[in-house]
């Protein structure tokens, strides 16, 4: 039987804040947390990318859930290889999600052990739909239920 303290369990970490589309990461974690049968994983929220690296270092596998600005509107899987070294815009503390992930990789986190599930929105004030949260949770559960950590396949944008 699996213990919830098992360090081998994947980490699902929602990053963001309480504002606009940025709350997506927190909403997904809350949704997963409130499931009748919570998934076999560690759930965390994080409010600053600068705090992300320490969590990634402690995890065997991790899915980062975040919102990102883009032309489309929907969910996207990204791998570490998909993200730039830096976006140059940083965040609180001068470190953005890209920098935090790349720092973790530099410190020994395997690139293939990290996935990003992003909600792409054109407007930071975009309201987060329940459908996105549920779909994100479904995709995360599908990913962590695999015996092996599947390669990321972009499922395309999901319109609400």
């Amino acid at each position, binding site marked *: 039987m699996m213990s919830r303290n098992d360090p081998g369990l994947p980490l699902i970490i929602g990053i963001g804040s309480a504002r606009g589309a940025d709350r997506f990461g927190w909403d997904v974690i809350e949704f997963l947390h409130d499931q009748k049968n919570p998934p076999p994983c560690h759930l965390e929220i994080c409010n*600053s990318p*600068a705090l992300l*690296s320490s969590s990634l270092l402690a995890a065997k596998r991790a899915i980062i859930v975040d919102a990102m600005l883009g032309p489309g509107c929907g969910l996207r899987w990204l791998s570490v290889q998909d993200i730039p070294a830096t976006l140059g815009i*940083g965040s609180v503390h001068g470190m953005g999600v890209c920098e935090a992930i790349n720092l973790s990789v*530099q*410190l020994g986190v395997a690139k293939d052990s990290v996935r990003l599930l992003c909600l792409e929105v054109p407007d930071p004030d975009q309201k987060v739909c329940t459908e996105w949260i549920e779909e994100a949770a479904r995709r995360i559960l599908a990913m962590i239920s695999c015996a092996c950590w599947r390669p990321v396949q972009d499922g395309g944008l999901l319109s609400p």
Partner: protein
Amino acid sequence: MSAASDPERQIDIEVPLLARVEGEGALEFTARGGHVEKLRLRIFEPPRLFEKFLEGQDHPEVPNIAARVCGVCPIAYQMTSIRAMEKVFGLVEDPWVHAMRRVIYFGEWLQSHTLHINLFAAPDFLGFTDALQMAARFPDEVRRGMLLQGLGNDLLKLLGGRSVHPIGLRVGGFHRAPPRHEVADLVDRLEAARDLVRGFAEWAIRLPCPEDDQDFVEVAIVHPEEYGINEGLLATSTGQMIDFEDYPRRFQEHQVAHSTAYYSMMDGSRYFLGPLARMNLNFLRLPEEVRSFAHDMGLVFPSRNRFRNLAARALECYLAVVESLQILKQYQLPVRPWQPVHVRAGIGHHCTEAPRGMIYHRFELDGQGRVMHATMIPPTSQNQACLEHDLHVSVERFGLAHTDDELRQLCEQVIRNYDPCLSCSTHFLRLDIHREHDVQE
């Protein structure tokens, strides 16, 4: 001498937006004919109105709202408001609650200090442009800092329920006493972290530290039996002891044109807060293990070198692990993790030590325990006058015969040394330099 470092040149460094900071501010630096004309940190963060939000709220709501003031040090805001309200209700802190409050505060210090040393300050001291570059050269050191940062988060979660905007604190104590097995897990991790934090502190203390002694007045909480955090009196380096209730009489805020943050003065003069101020005024209250380590490292407190803020932070990380371990090893489940309060009207004042310095709250409550007025004075605004003075002195000592990049780097290092909430970043300055040479006959 090249024109780029001619001290007589006109220097006009404008940083219109201090990017990647918590808060919004700018650095303005102008020199002409070899003299600094303007050197100031302009804070233009819009007012956040939390004190107004709190008006009319019932006292149990206050801690959760106060936590939102700062994502980096929510415990400081929660704890200070809780203690101010407990004073209104005449509540005397229970020993179990007192001990657990120290533990959760240590969690916040450990998380905040390791983050600051590891990712934001150390690259300055080692000459790297950022943490990524530094991690390529010092991967083990950076990894070690992150493990400690994670431990700080877990101390926060133990008593706060979560590390982001914790929800475990309440007026009277805590909503929940952690079960023994959770505490035992953390005791094991703290034991394992003892060598780790010692190594981390040693590395931080050995970073090349500029010699920059200055004369300044510092203020920190002191307590007769413990390293001042949550209880005690305000002490100054001039030997004064000030009750928290006297804060409004001794400390005054005023506005300046270039900042939306108030400036704070003590009896009309600037003052210095933060880890170095605490260490200077509390060194003898450190556990013997930490004090001996400081002696072994050749550290002497009080220190007048403000760059020793980094060493003080490192020692406080060590303190956080050692004292949390000591408290949690003796952990007993309480009958109830909170004390009942008897609501009554009144005014309460309290100060605690946030990671970056002392914070003051004043709460006025009505007979139903609703907030009538709230005042919350953060460490960053209290430090701002001192920080700007420090910038002037440091630039004058460094001299203007340096390039704009070197001068900007110095200013950034001085600012980051305070770990202010508006600039807890590595290399946050987006530069827009206008160079215009004066014609000097």
